[in-house]
């Protein structure tokens, strides 16, 4: 049973206990158990460590903590050794013995598990020295590696709920809104609308009751920032919502989280239960007049429900079909009442702004884009993972200094930013600073932070087709231009990728894209043509190659490529025949093999296993 905290004094007293407990803590092995590392075997690592500690008689002397996502998913499972902060990557259960042994051996770290700099070969000891982390400014994610997300005590120990206490005792609601405005915080869900302005409009609405909602329906494929924050530090979001409730006069709040994130749901449930137990949610919070409850609602699988009016419809038990705006949710939202909807990262930024002050926050970033931004850096990049950087950092720094460059010696081709609503930035614009205005001018969009890196083996026509397929399926289907337009765009792109397109088709792509963007009812339709428009703008030569020469320069589009075996390189190892599911490869063992192109479905399996690289794609 946790003690109920009736006043701010109670909170501080409890915090002091947690800090003390933390300071006296035994040495600790914290293992990342975010969704990524869990899928890579983090739980086996924990089991292994437990057993090894048991055998070494250190069960009571050393703690094992499971934490949320550290962000460097490429190198998971990750384990940190405290108090030194030694950073181990690619840990497996069988490494447990050595890790435990290192705790006693004069505490010399296990070399092979340390991060190795790919350029210098040097082994790096601590997390913050690893280049991937060194250049980040982990304002929101910094605590992920230190706390057990299922422990409110850990959150208190790192200063949690201090912002709430400060707001309740020192600031009037209008002041809180003023601080958020002065910080320059912009909505991190994608559109980048100034949060303070939204809150200000809400405050002026006369109707009651008022609601606040946390949009945790992170639907952009390739984005998992919200997932990691919800899994790793759910209380930071709750604290932000509490401050928002106070500032905006809301008594009820909702967190709408995707059904595809079961771990996030679990951790949120636990966090909510603990907050309620301690009296941080409910009536007369910390002795103030603030009454606030949060309901957790799961999505049912629809990308369009990330759109705020569709989300509201879904909360009301209806289909996720967006409503025309105006009126905006701040005027008429949930149940027709004033509602503020903000993204997970936006809510988590609020306690930071209160703790450090709006000026501190506004000092980070660029003129128009303040603070830090969290990106999921994925795709053809060496260091995939979550990256939190100040706004204004260049793409070059992101890709090469933090991301470690492109694997297998390939060349950078494009970066898709902002998910399906965003656009592709070509490699030629690599010195572009990452901020809202610069990206919009380049034809893309910040979006919620998805950043997919593509190399020379990616076909941009195929990318446009892929995104159009996604948007066509996820469109709610209510309005004509989006429903028909995305279908027609996808059909056109498919024909072009099959070599059946003409140059007139390119003009048609332009016109269709224009009308879908201009006349669609909601943001999904209005931004749906972006992948087509940006690839046409920056990679027109690829489209022309497809329509004029029936050639796919990246050698991806199946109808335009042929698989063959170079006789001079083939060593007859027969590996390809074993993986070919359509019996398209002919040849006896130890003799030169060949591919029957009438049976070849270009699945690429033979390419994957051919050691002498005799399989050619032309």
């Amino acid at each position, binding site marked *: 049973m946790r003690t109920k905290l009736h006043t701010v004094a109670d909170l501080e007293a409890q915090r002091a206990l947690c800090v003390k407990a933390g300071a006296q803590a035994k040495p600790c092995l914290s293992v990342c158990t975010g*969704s*990524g590392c*869990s*899928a*890579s075997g983090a739980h086996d690592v924990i089991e292994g460590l437990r057993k090894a500690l048991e055998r070494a008689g250190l069960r009571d002397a050393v703690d094992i903590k499971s934490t949320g996502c550290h962000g460097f*998913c*490429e190198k998971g499972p990750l384990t940190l050794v405290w108090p030194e902060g030694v950073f181990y990557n690619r840990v497996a259960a069988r490494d447990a013995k050595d890790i435990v042994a290192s705790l006693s051996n004069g505490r010399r770290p296990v070399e092979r598990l340390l991060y190795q700099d790919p350029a210098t070969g040097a082994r790096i000891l601590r997390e913050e020295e690893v280049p991937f982390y060194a250049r980040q400014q982990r304002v929101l994610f910094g605590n992920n590696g230190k706390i057990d997300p299922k422990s409110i005590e850990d959150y208190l120990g790192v200063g949690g709920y201090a912002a709430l206490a400060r707001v309740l005792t020192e600031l009037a609601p209008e002041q809180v809104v003023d601080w958020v405005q002065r910080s320059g915080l912009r909505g991190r869900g994608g559109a980048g609308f100034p949060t303070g302005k939204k809150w200000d409009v809400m405050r002026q609405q006369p109707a009651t009751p008022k609601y606040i909602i946390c949009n945790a329906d*992170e*639907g*952009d*494929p*390739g*984005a*998992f920032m919200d*997932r*990691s924050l919800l899994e790793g530090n759910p209380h930071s979001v709750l604290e932000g919502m509490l401050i928002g409730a106070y500032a905006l006069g809301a008594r009820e709040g909702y967190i709408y989280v995707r*059904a*595809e*994130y*079961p771990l996030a749901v679990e951790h949120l449930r636990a966090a909510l239960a603990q907050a309620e137990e301690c009296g941080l949610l409910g009536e007369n919070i910390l002795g103030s007049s603030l009454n606030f409850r949060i309901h957790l*609602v*799961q*999505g*049912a*699988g*629809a*990308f369009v429900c990330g759109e705020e009016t569709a989300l509201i419809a*879904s*909360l*009301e*038990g*209806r*289909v*996720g079909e967006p409503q025309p705006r105006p009126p905006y949710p701040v005027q008429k939202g949930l149940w027709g009442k004033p509602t503020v909807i903000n993204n997970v990262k936006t809510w988590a930024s609020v306690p930071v702004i209160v703790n450090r002050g709006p000026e501190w926050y506004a000092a980070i970033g660029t003129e128009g884009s303040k603070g830090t931004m969290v990106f*999921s850096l*994925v*795709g*053809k990049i060496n260091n*995939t993972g979550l990256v939190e950087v100040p706004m204004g950092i260049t793409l070059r720094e992101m890709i090469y200094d933090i991301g470690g460059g492109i694997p297998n010696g390939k060349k950078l081709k494009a970066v*898709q930013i902002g*998910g*399906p609503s965003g656009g592709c930035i070509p490699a030629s614009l690599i010195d572009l600073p990452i901020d809202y205005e610069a990206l919009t001018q380049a034809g893309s969009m910040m979006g919620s932070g*998805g950043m*997919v890196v*593509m190399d020379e083996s*990616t076909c941009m026509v195929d990318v446009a087709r*892929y*995104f159009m397929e*996604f948007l066509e399926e996820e469109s*709610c289907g209510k309005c004509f231009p989006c429903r028909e337009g995305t279908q027609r765009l996808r059909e056109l792109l498919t024909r072009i990728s099959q070599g059946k397109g003409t140059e007139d088709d390119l003009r048609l792509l332009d016109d269709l894209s224009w009308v879908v963007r201009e006349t669609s009812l909601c943001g999904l339709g209005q931004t749906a043509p972006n992948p087509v428009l940006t690839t046409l703008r920056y990679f027109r030569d690829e489209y022309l190659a497809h329509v004029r020469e029936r050639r796919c320069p990246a050698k991806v589009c199946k109808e335009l490529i042929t698989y063959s075996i170079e006789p001079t390189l083939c060593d007859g190892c027969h590996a390809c*025949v*074993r*993986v*070919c*599911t359509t019996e398209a490869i002919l040849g006896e063992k130890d003799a030169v093999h060949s591919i029957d192109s009438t049976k070849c479905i270009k*699945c*690429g*399996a033979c390419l*994957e*296993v051919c050691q002498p690289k005799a399989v050619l794609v032309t």
Partner: protein
Amino acid sequence: MSTTTEVEALLGRRAPRAEELIAVLQEIQEQFHYLPEEALRTVSRRLRLPLTQVFHVATFYNCFSLEPVGEHLVQVCLGTACHVRGAGRVLDRLLRDLKLGEPGTTPDFTFTVRTLRCVGCCALAPVVRVDANTHPHLTQAKVPGLLKKYRPKDKEQPQAAD
């Protein structure tokens, strides 16, 4: 217990309000592994919602299925990161091995293959989720092994090229 009785019991545990519709359907989906017609009619009656509205909600969202699903739900992530790393080929191989023309349920109801967009494990692309287990770094070659793990022992089938 008939479907209706079970559903009535389920509804009895919740307030009979319109906004509970999606949550109720989620519970029914979890319990029955699909949304039986009878269940939807019961929900329509009890929550006093037009059947057309219940039907639209039941067919709108990806999580709901009007048809029974197989024993194992195999979900191939086709998110951007996974796509760029070849998830399409993994899906093709999966469909070929299970002799399915498109994502659906095998005739013996062992597997239901679906695509989904992004489970949020992009660093481990390509990712396939089977039931509650997430399998990272899939390749075409790993598909037979994956299926073997979940196939019931008495239904061992000769594999296509392994």
